[in-house]
């Protein structure tokens, strides 16, 4: 069992494994070129012509979030915190996804905006729009770079590829398929990737469970491990933050993770929302995040469970650095358990999910750059062909900057953590601004701008104070709960306060953007879509939430 420690974390791929890998990337590029024939307009390129069925956009929605960083990170959390990690999947995702589908999507899709910043422009004003468009664009390319760097690290560890080779090859593949195929290509690959990553994780979980004697055997072993019984419960030890491995109490989990962090991420992150905007009609758009909620409920079975298996079977897991860090839980199990063949599928799934994560960032970036920066402020009123071309240039530019970030990140170990943390700062105030603006028609344009800016500065200030040790927290996690909470409250208070001193927008300009103002001039906001029950977003959403609660019961 300690083999991994001695031989280093190097997977022994044979020719068949490489064949599986090569077949995948040939397919990915083929999809890009096939999609190219279908692209005639900029809307095709950026929004897939608003023509995709709900199951495709739904799987792409969950896949855009199922990047390899997420998979490896959640397995690591599973190994470190046990079943408490389930909160990230259930309370920390499902309610927000359902809320996005039922409550917010009518405004997003119904107003026919092409991006989240564009919604802000119409609800508030141009300064709000510029601030959000620029911060989003910068965040996306930097995060794309972080993804790329993480991909290179894993290729280096598993296959022994040089960092720079991996960075360039990964970037070239993503660049090619997005530049030629646009969002369609990114979305199709996300759907494909979803199945491939599952085909890699399922055998890992099955064999792992056989090894530890099934779920019962696993739980028994966890009880006897240093993690102990506390790691096998989700809520019962959260009365105080000292009693559970996560170091958080139920208030922090419920409001910090379950409300502010989760709603901020899922409902305003354009890289996610864009998937729903490409759906073929309102009903499909509303079902997109809700369909995504169902796989989200079950994915912990193939991430947290392997994490726990790794925690009890791999001796020495949890080292500060080297091969035995928590982040390597899944690669270590792959090395330990998978024979050639399924090993190739698993490696392919892992690489595919890196590319999907990066593609989501890049396709979010090129849309916002083209529509919200270039078309809105730099070159207005050109032909659609012109913006389609700009979109392709933006993709190339975004990937090149991403490569630059990846190389910078490779020089400074911790920088990528900082970057990710920094940009998570944008989400909480953005959600506050959105939610107040959507439900309170009096909220003024300048209130939008100041609540966004001051909310962001508030959480930035707290983060800097944390980095410089001016304020201490039990864990980085606790800091992120507090940061999100402070940003949220600041943004709401500022939104209300500024509204009393600045003029509102006329109601006519807010139709379709604000709750309670009816829809647009020619109908209601909620298009009564397909009538059958299994296409009813509210019913499906309710089922998802009920399932999330029910799933908690056996692991209370």
């Amino acid at each position, binding site marked *: 069992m300690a083999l991994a420690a001695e031989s280093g974390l190097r997977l022994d791929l044979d020719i068949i494994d490489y064949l599986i890998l090569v077949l995948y990337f040939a397919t990915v590029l083929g999809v890009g070129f096939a999609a190219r024939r279908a692209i005639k307009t900029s809307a095709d390129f950026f929004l897939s012509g*608003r023509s995709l069925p709900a199951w495709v956009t739904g799987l792409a929605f969950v896949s855009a979030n199922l990047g390899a960083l997420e998979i490896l990170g959640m397995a690591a959390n599973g190994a470190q915190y046990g079943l408490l990690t389930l909160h990230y999947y259930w309370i920390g995702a499902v309610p927000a996804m359902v809320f996005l589908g039922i409550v917010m999507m009518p405004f997003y899709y119904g107003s026919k905006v092409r991006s989240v910043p564009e919604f802000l422009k119409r609800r508030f004003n141009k300064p709000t729009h510029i601030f959000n468009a620029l911060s989003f664009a910068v965040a996306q390319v930097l995060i794309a770079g972080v993804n790329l760097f993480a991909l290179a690290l894993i290729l280096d560890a598993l296959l022994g590829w040089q960092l720079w080779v991996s960075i360039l090859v990964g970037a070239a593949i993503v660049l090619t398929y997005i530049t030629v195929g646009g969002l*369609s290509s990114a979305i199709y690959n996300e759907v494909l990737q979803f199945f491939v990553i599952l085909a890699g994780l399922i055998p890992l979980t099955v064999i792992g469970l056989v090894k530890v004697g099934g779920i019962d055997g696993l739980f028994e072993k966890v009880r006897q491990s240093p993690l102990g019984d506390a790691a096998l419960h989700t809520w019962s030890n959260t009365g105080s933050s000292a009693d559970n491995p996560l170091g958080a109490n139920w208030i922090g989990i419920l409001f910090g993770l379950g409300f502010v962090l989760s709603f901020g991420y899922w409902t305003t992150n354009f890289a996610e929302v864009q998937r729903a905007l490409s759906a073929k009609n309102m009903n499909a758009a509303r079902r997109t995040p809700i369909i995504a909620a169902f796989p989200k409920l079950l994915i912990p079975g193939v991430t947290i469970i392997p994490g726990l298996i790794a925690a009890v079977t791999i001796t020495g897991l949890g080292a500060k650095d080297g091969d035995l860090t928590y982040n390597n839980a899944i690669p270590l199990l792959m090395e330990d*358990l998978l024979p050639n063949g399924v090993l190739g599928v698993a490696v392919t799934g892992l690489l595919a999910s890196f590319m999907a994560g990066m593609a989501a960032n890049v396709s979010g970036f090129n849309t916002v750059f083209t529509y919200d920066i270039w078309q809105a402020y730099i070159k207005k009123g050109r032909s659609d062909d012109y913006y389609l071309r700009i979109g392709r240039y933006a993709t190339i530019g975004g990937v090149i900057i991403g490569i630059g970030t990846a190389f910078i990140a490779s020089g400074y170990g911790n920088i990528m953590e900082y970057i990710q943390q920094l940009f998570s700062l944008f989400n909480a105030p953005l959600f506050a601004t959105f939610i107040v603006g959507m439900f309170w028609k009096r909220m003024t344009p300048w209130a939008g701008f100041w609540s966004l800016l001051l909310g962001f500065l508030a959480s930035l200030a707290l983060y800097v104070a944390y980095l410089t040790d001016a304020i201490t927290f039990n864990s980085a996690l606790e800091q992120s709960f507090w940061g999100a909470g402070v940003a949220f409250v600041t943004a709401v208070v500022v939104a209300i306060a500024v509204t009393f001193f600045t003029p509102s927008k006329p109601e006519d300009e807010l139709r379709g953007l604000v709750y309670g103002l009816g829809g647009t001039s020619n109908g209601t906001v909620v298009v009564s879509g397909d009538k059958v029950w299994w296409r009813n977003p509210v019913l499906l959403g309710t089922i998802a939430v009920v399932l999330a609660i029910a799933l908690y019961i056996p692991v209370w």
Partner: protein
Amino acid sequence: MADNDQVDQKKLSAAAKLFDVRRVIGGLFVVYGVIVTILGLFDSQAEIDKAQGVRINLWMGLGMLALGLLFLLWLRLNPPQPPDPSDIDDTRPPAD
């Protein structure tokens, strides 16, 4: 931006329907399924031992083959339709 939106709407080419993601997934998984199943038939004892006695290549190969065939069957039973204008919700006025 009103002008552009209208142009977009007219030229909506429904990119997704010209080639179908079900064919892509189905095709890739059938190929993967065949490769991994054949591999699984000839797995050595060492490989089976590594997988804790589970003939994982055989099972996963058959599983992937079945998934791939299901997607192709779905495509056959419910082929992509040409874009249907009523399917695309066009009732909203364009932006701005």
